[in-house]
Structures are given as structure tokens and as C-alpha cells.
């Protein structure tokens, strides 16, 4: 039996739905960096890049912590 989507490790390449969500996230991530660089200069872009990267990693780690162990 397949594992329900809400209980699986997030993988942007597992299904079209997850790949599409990853595309939306990538648009937000790179769009925010580009906008910050355009209006605030290099260091604003670097700051947004750092903040978003840390936030993304923290979200991913926190999400996976509550998942069931893989069925063996």
C-alpha cells in the first residue's frame, strides 16, 4: 500500500504535483532574490538569499522530523 502523501518525505521529483509545488517555490525564492538585488543592491540580495536558504532548510528539517519511519 502506498504511503499517504502527507506522511512522506518531501521529494520534488516524486510526482508532477510535487514538482509543480517545487516550481512555485523556486519562483518565489529566486524572484525575491532578484527583486532584493534590483532595489537594494548586492548585499540586499545576499541577505535575502541567506535568510530564505536558512528558512527553507529549517522548514524541510522540521517537516521531516514528524514523519513515520520508512516501512521495511
Amino acid at each position, binding site marked *: *500500500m*502506498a*504511503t499517504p502523501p502527507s506522511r512522506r518525505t518531501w*521529494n520534488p*521529483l*516524486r*510526482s*508532477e*504535483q510535487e*514538482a*509543480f509545488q*517545487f*516550481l512555485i517555490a*523556486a*519562483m518565489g525564492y*529566486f*524572484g525575491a*532574490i*532578484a527583486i532584493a*538585488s*534590483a532595489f537594494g543592491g548586492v548585499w540586499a*540580495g545576499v541577505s535575502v538569499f541567506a535568510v530564505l536558504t536558512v528558512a527553507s532548510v529549517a522548514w524541510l528539517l522540521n517537516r521531516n522530523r514528524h514523519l513515520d519511519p*520508512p*516501512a521495511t
Partner: protein
Amino acid sequence: MEAHAAAEQHHGPPPANVSSRIDARVLGMLLFIGSEIMLFGSFFTAYFFVRVVNHDSWPAKGTHLPVFVAGINTAILVTSSFTMHWALTSIKRGNRAGMRAGLALTFFMGLTFLLTQIAEYSRIGFAPNDSAFATIFFSLTGLHGMHVFIGLLLLLAATIRAFRGHYTPEHHHGVEIPGIYWHFVDVMWIVVYVTVYVL
């Protein structure tokens, strides 16, 4: 008794072990995209070396990148991901007309992107052998263009099959797998556009 008889009649190797967590076809595409990410990673390494470590002027003197045209092209490609998603959502709901329209629109928007990129190359005013900047520009955008071309072949096959009556709400891997690939190609373009054209 019947099972025993069937086992005796079976010839050839035993069936391969299949993971219950991921479909074998999706796993194949996942591994392929993993190798593609490494390929793009090597090109981006060269790009950042030329731009940051090598201290070449960026962009090279006398060159001008068509940021606006590439931006419109980016919008076209991103929109094609939405139509791809629409196509898959439609077939999951049993809406064949929506799937066909979504696939056809995705194909034509991808084709528009590729033709616009070819036109951009012909008018850009520099050649790959002019400077390190020009080399890595054509390498990165050309590599991506090749991926769009492969994606178009997958989409064409899926579109033809869709118009021939293939795919059902239960069986639509032929749409799902090109969809995963197409979204990957779009994400890669977003990275290329932002790093090469915008930043």
C-alpha cells in the same frame, strides 16, 4: 493447485523486486533528473568561476543581454508549466478535453520559447568564441535549450497519444513523467535567467 500449475508453466527469470514506495518509471525519471542536476551544476560551477573567481568584466565589454525578451520568454515557459499541471489535473478528473488542450498548449509554448531563443542567438551580437563570458553564456543557455528540445519530444509523444485516446484517470504515467521533466526544465531556466540575465 492452479497457482502451482501456473508456476510450472512460467518460463524466464522471476519478476524483479518492486519498491512499494515509488513507481519504477518515476524512479527512472528521478535518477535521470538527478544526473541532469549534476550536469547543470558543473556548468554553473564554470559560470561562477568565470564571473567571480576569474575577475572578468560581467557582462564582457561591448555585449548587451536582451533581458526584456528573455523575461517574456521566461513568462512563456513558466506559463507552460501551469498548462502542464492543468493537463494532468484534468486527466485525473476524467476530463480528456482539458488534458488535450493542456498538453497542446504546453507544447506550443515550449516551441515558442525555443524559437525565441534561436532568434535571440541570431541577433545577440557576439559569438561563443569572443570571450569567456560569451562561451559560458552560450553553454548554459544552449544546454538548457537542448533540454527544452528533449522535453518537447516527450510532450509531442504525450500529446499524440492523448489525441489518440490514451490515458485514463487511473493510468496517466505518460503525462505525469513528462510533466515532472518539464517542471524540472522550467526550474532550471528560472535559475539560469536569474543568475545570467538579472543578477
